[in-house]
Structures are given as structure tokens and as C-alpha cells.
């Protein structure tokens, strides 16, 4: 006993607790603990509460009763809601495609040595850094029907003869918010993909170059597959954020003109907060869920497939 204790004290480098961490399951649990704690405290309850809210008829300050899926039936028959669904899909799809393409392009442009590299890389992030509410006010000023600098520029370039009513026309209003979202999102894609590009060893590319692969082929067969996991995650988050976008539309158009730019979040806010119909607002927010879930599952499956390849 005594002997083992002494020698044990000497070689007690890997403490028993740490030794337990050699077991993958224990280690995993330890590593996941802080996350589980925070999310459990701060999101589990609100989430359940939100779901419960959507199956009652609660209004603000008035406890509700269980009404089953009535709220969902109601919003399904709501023409504004249907417009909202279409708007959200269109908005998400268009912005995501552009953000990915432009972001990837920008990441490739940034992934090399040039003068002022650090400065450019950081300042390119500005659209993403600046608080959305404030940058959207600046854009609103630029799209303002009376003062639009964009109209002035186009006019000076001889491209238009009369003003363009950017936020007043339903299609142009949608285009405008799409443009602003892309402007905000490209830096996010670029910087994340840039980090991804940098984890790819340059030797791989050099080797391929020596083997005579053209730049496009090198990108397609070497870079792109290695970049794919990061790309998919970035895209996943971007899609979700765009789908649930709120501030931009809220400030820019408030969902107008005539609901042409309402998204899920703005409409849910309008109903839940504006009219106190908390339950219906919750139902609209939750209606996002199945749509998002489909998108997410498809992307996750794709990520898995890519990884096992």
C-alpha cells in the first residue's frame, strides 16, 4: 500500500480525472458541458414557451387557452402570409447565390500577397461590422426618392432620364433590399472562405500545377472539394440568417409597399408586437421552422455525403 502510494505520487502526471478524459465519451461530455449549460438555461425554456404560445390564443397581457392548430390554419388562409412566404424564399435564394459566388471570388482575390493586404482584408469587412440598423439608414438615404445619389449617378452617366422609384415599386423595393443584403453578406462569406482557403496547404496546388493542371481544374479538383465543408457551413448559417432577416426590412420598408417586402420575421413582428397577437406571431415564426428544416436537412445530408466521399 505504502509503496504504491509513494510511487503513485511520483508518476501522478495524468491525474485520474484527466485519465478519464482519455475515454472519448467522457471527454466529449466534458467538452459539451458549457454549451449545454448555457443553451439549456437560456434557450430551452423560451423555445418551449414559444411553441406553446403558438397553440394558444394568447394576446399580450391576456392568458390564452389551448386552440390546437387554429393559428396555423388562420395564417395559412392569410393572403399576406402567403406573400410573405414567397418573398422570403425569393429573397433568400437570390441573395444566397450572389453572396456565395461573389464571396468566393473575393476570397480567392484576397488569398495572395499584395501590398496593404491586412488593411484591405479588414476594411472589406466594414459592411458586415457596421450595425445593420445604421447601415440600413444610410442605404435608405441613398435610395430616397427625393435625394437618391444612385439616381443622380445613373442620370449623370446618361443611363436614365427620369428618377427610379427604388423603394416605391414592389419589384424594385425587393431588389433594393436584396442588394443591401448582398452588400452586407459578401464580406462574411469572403472572410470565412478565406480562412478555409488558408487551411488548404499551398503545396497541394503547387503539386497540381507541376502536374500541368490548368487553374480552373486546380480549383475544381483540388481547392473546391477541400473548401466544401466550410462553404456548406457558412452557407447554412447565411441561409438561416437571411431567412429570418428582420432589421434590414424593418428599417428599409417596414414590409411595404403593400406587403411586397414582408419577410417571416417582419410579419411575425408586425402581428405579434404591433397588434399584440402573440400567439399568431409565434405561429408565423414557427412556420419558418419546417421550411428551414428542409433546407437544413438537405444541406446537412449533402455535407455528410461530401465528407464520406
Amino acid at each position, binding site marked *: 500500500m505504502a509503496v504504491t502510494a509513494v510511487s503513485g505520487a511520483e508518476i501522478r502526471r495524468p491525474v485520474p480525472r484527466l485519465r478519464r478524459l482519455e475515454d472519448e465519451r467522457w471527454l466529449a461530455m466534458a467538452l459539451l458541458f458549457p454549451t449545454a449549460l448555457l443553451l439549456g438555461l437560456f434557450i430551452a425554456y423560451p423555445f418551449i414557451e414559444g411553441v406553446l404560445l403558438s397553440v394558444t390564443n394568447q394576446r*399580450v397581457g*391576456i392568458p390564452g387557452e389551448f386552440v390546437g392548430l387554429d393559428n396555423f390554419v388562420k395564417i395559412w388562409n392569410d393572403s399576406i402570409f402567403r406573400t410573405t412566404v414567397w418573398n422570403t424564399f425569393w429573397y433568400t435564394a437570390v441573395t444566397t447565390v450572389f453572396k456565395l459566388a461573389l464571396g468566393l471570388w473575393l476570397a480567392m482575390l484576397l488569398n495572395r500577397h499584395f501590398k496593404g493586404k491586412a488593411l484591405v482584408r479588414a476594411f472589406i469587412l466594414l459592411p458586415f461590422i457596421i450595425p445593420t440598423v445604421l447601415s440600413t439608414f444610410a442605404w435608405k438615404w441613398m435610395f430616397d426618392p427625393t435625394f437618391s445619389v444612385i439616381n443622380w449617378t445613373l442620370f449623370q452617366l446618361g443611363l436614365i432620364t427620369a428618377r427610379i422609384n427604388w423603394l416605391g415599386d414592389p419589384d424594385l423595393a425587393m431588389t433594393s433590399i436584396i442588394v443591401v443584403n448582398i452588400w452586407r453578406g459578401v464580406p462574411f462569406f469572403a472572410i470565412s472562405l478565406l480562412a478555409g482557403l488558408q487551411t488548404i496547404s499551398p503545396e497541394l496546388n503547387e503539386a497540381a500545377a507541376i502536374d500541368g493542371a490548368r487553374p480552373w481544374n486546380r480549383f475544381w479538383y483540388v481547392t473546391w472539394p477541400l473548401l466544401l465543408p466550410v462553404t456548406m457551413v457558412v452557407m447554412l448559417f447565411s441561409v438561416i440568417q437571411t431567412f429570418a432577416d428582420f432589421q434590414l426590412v424593418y428599417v428599409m420598408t417596414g414590409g411595404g*409597399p403593400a406587403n411586397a417586402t414582408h419577410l417571416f420575421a417582419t410579419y411575425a413582428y408586425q402581428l405579434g408586437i404591433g397588434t399584440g397577437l402573440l400567439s399568431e406571431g409565434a405561429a408565423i415564426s414557427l412556420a419558418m421552422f419546417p421550411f428551414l428544416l428542409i433546407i437544413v436537412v438537405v444541406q446537412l445530408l449533402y455535407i455528410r455525403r461530401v465528407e464520406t466521399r
Partner: protein
Amino acid sequence: MVETKRRNVIKLAGSAAALASTGMAGILASGRTPAFAQQKTVHWLKWVDFVPATDQMFTKDMVPAAEKALGIKIKLETVNGNDLQPRITSSIQSGAGPDIIMSFNSFTHLYANSVVDMSDLAEDLSKREGGLYKYARAICSDGKMFMGVPWAVIGGMIAYRKSWLEEAGATKFPDNWEDYRALAKKLKAKGRPFGQTLGHTFGDAPGFTYPYLWSWGGKEVEADGKTVVINTKETIESVKFMTGLWKDGMDEGGLAWDDTNNNRAFLSQTISATLNGASIYIESLRKPEQYQTEKGKPLNTDILHAPLPKGPAGQFGFHLLQSNMLMKYSKNQDAAKEFLKYLHTEANYRKFFESQKGFATPCTAKWESDKLWDADPVMTPYKVAAKLGQAIGFAGPPNAKAQEVLSKYIVTDMYAKAVQGMPAEESVKWAESELKKVYV
């Protein structure tokens, strides 16, 4: 940043020193905790006032005076008017938050279950000040209780350019829609259209479309508050007229405007008339050298105000009515009530009223004859703003359902859709189906 920091530091040092010299001595002398530690705090959440002088008056003058007079602490918080509702909602749902919250329009009805009856204060106010206007009563009371104490009305009147109208042959602002349209057409031909918003914005859009609808004889629901009656000849007529009016005489950017755009358009001299609070005029008074007419005169000498034109069914107005709600969850209801009483004593309310220079119209008849209105004839039309007002939901009550219609912009969108090219009958039908979903 240096400046603010330094000032804060000085403030901090100052209060610390004060505490050390008098406070500590006081504590030691009396042998108990100082009174201010037991003081009740009343938290008042209001909109950030359009007139900065008013907020300054509150923070520098009224609040310290009230703290002294009432022996309470007052925490005054101001937020952007648009952001009041999320604050109210989360406060009510979590049962904690500001004790007194400023309400816009029918918020009172929306949050009726969560506020304390203020009948005593409101009736007292009414008695003292020559009677509450019908409009204020309809919005703040449901017949059984007062959900808020009426504070003020931000009146909406048409601001117009005197000289431009004269050049187009009009000596005064048109008082019916036909003349309004004819004049707008003339002025638009000269590149000086009228301007109005049909966007999703809480002030000017319903401020125009609701009275417009009513003046044509349209109404969303019968007095029973259940039967939707929007789909009538009168409404369709009004929609058709609006479409024509829009093409003939309006600045077409208006579909996208929020409450601020028409101010800017007017001040930059691109429109000749718009429905608005007095803010355009007040801004032009604030900086006369900045806003000048094309002839080099101060713009404020060329602005006049007029009520919205009459229609076949009469003349109406819809204004932003503000009231103060005392919240049920508040733990300091007595102190908060005292504070509200304090605000509404004549001398104190006058300070507020005068700092507003007519931007806010009081809710009681007495102030109509105040000499402030004579001080500036341009502002005189606003003195009856609250009197002409009619509450939303007409002919039904301005209850939560009417508020839902307002928040969904159904009436405004009915016009916006038609202006964007939807046939009048169809857009009215759309509004009808939406209204029916609200008034079930």
C-alpha cells in the same frame, strides 16, 4: 469621447465628494441608512420627443423638481417611438419594466388588461380643464375605465407653400377633394406636386388614408364592431379618385415614404403640400438661414397650415394621441400616480406645452384659448387638431381589433395596391377579406 469621459468623471467625483461631506455625516448622525436608499423609483418610458427642447426641459428641470417635491426618484427613459411596442410587450409578458409608459393611439385598448384604471386622474383633469375632447376620451377610455391619462395630440395638418399656391391661382388651401386634385394637378405640371405617403409607417400614412376614407363615407366596420362594411360604392369611389389623384398631382415617390420623407421633400422644396405634424414648420423656424425659398426668403415665412379637405361625408382628422399608462405590474403605483398628478398640474403641464410651441395639442378644451396659439398665427390651425380627430375603427370602437387593422396597414394598403395598378374593386375586395379575418 475624451470630453464626455472627463465630464462623467467630474460628475462622479462631485457626487462622491457630496456624499462624503454631507451624506456620510448625515448617516453617522442619524445612525440609519440614508433616506435616498429607501426612496421609491418611478420609471417613465416615453418617446424621444421630436422637440429636443422638451426632453431637455424634462431632464434638467421638471424631473429634478418632481424628485424634490415628491420625495421619489424618477428614471426617465426615452426611446424612438417605433420601439415602444416591443418594450411594452416584453414588460407586460415578463411582469417587470417601466412603471409609466407612454402610449400611442389605441395602445391603451390593446394593453387594457395590463394597466391600472386612471379614471380619477382623467376625470379630474377633464373637470379642471374644461372637458376632455371626445377623441381623447374614445382612445383612452373603453367606457368603464381609463387605460391611460391623456397627454397630448400630435396634430396632423397640411403644410403648404403659400407663394406656390398663389402662383397657381389659389388664395387659400382647397377645402374639398375635387379642388385639391385640380390644384395638385396644376402644381405637379410645374414640378411642384403634392406629397403623401402610402407606405408602411405609423404616422402620416394612416393619418391621411383614414380621414380620407371617412370623408368619402367609407368605414371599415359598423358600430357593432363586427359587421365589415368596407366594400361599398363610397369606398370604391374613394379608391378610384385616389388613383387619379396620384397620377395627376402626387409625388410618385410617396409609395415608399416613411414619416420622415415628406418632411425632407417639403424642406428641400420638391413638394408644395403634405399632411404632417407641425414638425416641418418648426424645423424651418429652428434654422431659418438653412431653409430658404427659391427667392431667398426664409422658408418659414412661406408655410401655412390647413386641415384635410372635406369629402361628401364630411371633414375628418386622425392624429397621434399620446397618453400615459400606469402598468399593473408596477410596484410603485402610488408614487407613479403622484408623479402623473404632478405632471398634470397646470403650471407643470404648461412648461411642457410651451416647450412644444404648438407641436403638441393638449387634450382638453381649456388650452384652445391659450395665448400660445395667438403668438404664431401659422400654428393656430393646430389648436383644434384634437377636436376634429376621430378614432380608428370607425364606426366601431377603437379597440384591439381596430388596432390590428391599423398595424396591418389594411386601409393604407388598399389604396397603395390600387395606385400600383390593381383595379379599385379588387383592392377593396382584398381589404374586405382581410378585415373580415380580423373582425370575426
